[in-house]
């Protein structure tokens, strides 16, 4: 049989290529995470065992979300902020309780998101063995933090820079040890120190084998910590839902202030730690729903200058955010708090 | 031909089957005496125990009863005094011809120069001169068998045991190898015990042909082949002897 009879007409060749390419693209897009969520359910992400996120735990357990008519699908817990932001970018999370540093980092990477409310201030700390007297003694010691890009990672950089040190002076293990494992790692001597969120700071203190060398509030009093972030598309399309989330959130914040004892019980349940640890940790966390735009701006500029000075490996560079103020104004959206 | 080199006396070999517990008697009351320098062939139907006997003499199996003595001393395990040549050559594929042939002296602790010399002599003897560096995968069937014979001879064994060594060669190479073997044998005059299916081969090669019964194997009849070397297959005596032995194999023996 002559080849000619079966050969495809020349005009079909580019067409076939395009169809094949399109099929490939479609199949990639049909992978989970590509399609946006249905508006009736809101997917909320949170961090592992993080006492800062107590307002979320309270809102869930006390039914504040349900009161607002929200159907919450809980996503997580994530081991660190950057992982949660990744999920947000991949359309797996609609609303996230996360640290402000990963949030601005994701925003600097052009992930569409908005910071819509605060969750807490302060509440992290550098824990070391009792034998370490000051930050200078951290030289060549093993220090663990959550993943690179987390607040604790950045603030450790700030602390070291303030003491004329940099990340290269310590043996840093970012993201290697899960936050709940950090106290035990310190106890067994696998690490010499760690910078993490409460209540894992308190755990070593209450356990008697560690001490808070530096609390995060000592590095920057009143620093913003966790915030509520909405995925770009979601916020725009579901104004009412976001409003409801914020309303439930404010109720939770007020509840914690008014009923600390019950709040601590809820905290113990979600972090799986006992009352003594929760008690100790509680003192270092300040819950608030307010959002300070200038503080966010300060955080971003700190990250940039730390990267430039070489204290930390650059996470956000000046070229990522050429107009810092414009960037911050795009990212921070306080309109829900003003209602 | 002088003295009794190899004395096989009333050998019985029973194999116990692992499952079922059945036992097979491979050899029963097998006796044979072989003189030094003698060429003896064993022929018999399949399963008559020819290979088993060879293995017993080689020491790779133990007899259930009876004795095998070489130069008056009983045979227990395998050793360099009895050389063994297999049908499928069993050359070591990772060694070249020289290293294969030198294997025996090597494991017996002979120093390198000496064993290289011995190897070269044996290689020359079997007609493989110049192929010492080749590997088994580069050799033809006939060359491989020559190498195997050279290897067996390198230890200067007292008796050469050959288990259908030419069975896997084509007819032309086979006949060539038969002549080669005779030449080698006449050169070093060792006792040879040769197992074969081919009556013609047996008559062509040996001084005596031992016909074995089927399982359990024992000596049926021994024929003397008095023909001078080199033998002609067209010779009348050759042909009638061959017919006789073939007949003896199947039914009656005279």
């Amino acid at each position, binding site marked *: 049989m002559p*080849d000619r009879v*079966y*050969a*495809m007409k020349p005009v*079909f*060749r580019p067409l076939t290529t395009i169809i094949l*390419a399109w099929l*490939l*693209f479609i199949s*990639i*897009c049909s992978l989970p995470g590509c399609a946006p969520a249905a508006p009736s359910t809101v997917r909320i992400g949170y961090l592992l065992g993080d006492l800062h996120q107590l307002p979320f735990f309270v809102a869930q357990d006390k039914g504040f979300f349900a009161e607002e008519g929200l159907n919450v699908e809980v996503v997580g817990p994530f081991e*660190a902020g*950057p992982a949660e*932001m*990744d999920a947000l*970018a*991949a359309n797996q999370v609609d609303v996230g309780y996360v640290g402000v540093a990963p949030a601005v*980092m*994701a925003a600097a*990477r*052009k*992930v569409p998101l908005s910071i819509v409310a605060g969750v807490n201030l302060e509440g992290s700390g550098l824990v070391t063995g009792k034998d370490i007297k000051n930050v200078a003694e951290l030289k060549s010691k*093993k220090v663990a933090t959550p*993943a*690179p*890009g987390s607040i604790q990672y950045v603030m450790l950089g700030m602390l070291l820079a303030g003491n004329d040190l940099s990340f290269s002076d310590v*043996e*840093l*293990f970012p*993201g*290697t040890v899960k936050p709940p494992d950090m106290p035990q790692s310190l106890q067994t001597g*696998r*690490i010499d120190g760690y910078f993490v969120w409460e209540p894992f700071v308190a755990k070593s203190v209450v356990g008697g084998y560690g001490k808070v060398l530096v609390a995060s509030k000592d590095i920057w009093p009143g620093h913003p910590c966790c915030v509520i972030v909405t995925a770009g598309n979601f916020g725009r399309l579901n104004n009412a839902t976001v409003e409801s989330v914020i309303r439930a959130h404010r109720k939770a914040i007020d509840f914690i202030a008014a009923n600390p004892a019950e709040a601590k019980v809820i905290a113990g349940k979600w972090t799986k730690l006992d009352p003594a640890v929760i008690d100790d940790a509680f003192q270092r966390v300040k819950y608030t729903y307010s959002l300070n735009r200038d503080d966010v701006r300060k955080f971003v500029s700190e990250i940039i200058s730390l990267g430039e000075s070489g204290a930390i490996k650059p*996470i956000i560079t000046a070229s990522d955010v050429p107009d810092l103020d414009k960037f911050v104004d795009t990212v921070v959206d306080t309109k829900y708090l003003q209602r | 031909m002088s003295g009794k080199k190899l004395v096989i006396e009333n050998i019985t070999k029973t194999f116990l089957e692992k499952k079922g517990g059945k036992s097979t008697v491979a050899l029963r009351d097998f006796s044979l005496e072989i003189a030094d320098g003698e060429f003896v062939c064993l022929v018999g139907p399949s399963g008559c125990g020819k290979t088993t006997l060879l293995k017993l003499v*080689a*020491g*790779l199996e133990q007899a259930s009863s009876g004795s095998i003595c070489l130069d008056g001393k009983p045979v227990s*395990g*395998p*050793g*360099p005094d009895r*050389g*063994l040549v*297999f049908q499928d050559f*069993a050359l*070591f*594929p*990772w*060694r070249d011809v020289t290293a294969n042939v030198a*294997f*025996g002296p090597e*494991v*017996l602790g002979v120093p390198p120069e000496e064993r290289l010399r011995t190897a070269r002599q044996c290689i020359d003897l079997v007609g493989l001169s110049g192929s010492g560096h080749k*590997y*088994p*995968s*580069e050799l033809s069937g006939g060359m491989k068998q020559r190498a195997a014979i050279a*290897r*067996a001879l390198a*230890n200067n064994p007292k008796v050469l045991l050959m288990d259908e060594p030419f069975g896997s060669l084509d007819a032309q190479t086979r006949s060539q190898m038969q002549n080669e073997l005779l030449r080698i044998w006449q050169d070093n005059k060792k006792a040879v015990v040769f197992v074969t299916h081919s009556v013609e081969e047996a008559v062509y090669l040996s001084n005596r042909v031992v016909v074995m019964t089927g399982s359990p194997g024992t000596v049926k009849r021994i024929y003397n082949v008095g023909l001078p070397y080199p033998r002609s297959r067209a010779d009348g005596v050759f042909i009638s002897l061959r017919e006789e032995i073939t007949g003896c194999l199947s039914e009656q023996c005279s």
Partner: protein
Amino acid sequence: MSIQLWIPNIFRGEDTRPLRLISILLFLLIWEGAALLANLPQLFPTPIAVVTALGQLLVSPGPPGVEWAGELMGNTLISLWRVIVGFSLAAVTGVLLGIIIGWWRNARDLIEPVVELLRPIPPLAWIPLAMLWFGLGFKPAVFLIWLGAFFPIVLNTVLGMESTPHKLTEVARTLGAGPWQVLFKVGVPSAAPSIMAGLRIGIGIGWMCLVAAELTGSNSGLGYMIMYYYSTMEAAKTVAGMLMIGIVGFLMFIGLKKLEDRILFWKAA
């Protein structure tokens, strides 16, 4: 795209190189297109971004101890060193144990059940124990690599030893070889092809375990580098790291294959 595309390989005579090149180009084009369409440059990088990232990683300062090598090569060297150590340990212990189990029936009955029990456990599952026993850094990584490489090496060595043709050991014995000589002059050389295959498989698995090992216990190496840039949402550098892992793995495979061909030249000429 004519009927010629569908000719079975065995009928082919001519060179198919042009088609292979087209396949790679097509892949790159689709990748570039899909990435641009997805429009999330920091999560779904274009091929060009990855190449740029590779360039950046080649010149940025390397991890402590190998700053001079640049970030990409420095981390590669660190990972390579871990694999070399882990694999060497696995090769020595694996071949030794394989010889023992494969040669002596009693040893096999004694040791094999334990090996078969542990083998199905994926190296990933050993990570918590590894960190418990060895802490952080070099040691747990080496342990996990050793684990990954060990079992295929043992398995293949046992196979090789067990398949030593009986005729060869019989011949050796008739030539006067004692039991240890039979083991080392016949058993081991006969098993060599199998052992080499086991080593080749072992280093492949060991290299794959490397990433798992480094993800959880180290602060250097290619595996760590990938996780770092995943965290800081610099996907182009993550993919660049993945590419490097693939390239090194491929080179190791080729290297071992060449070695194998050299050692086993005596097989079917």
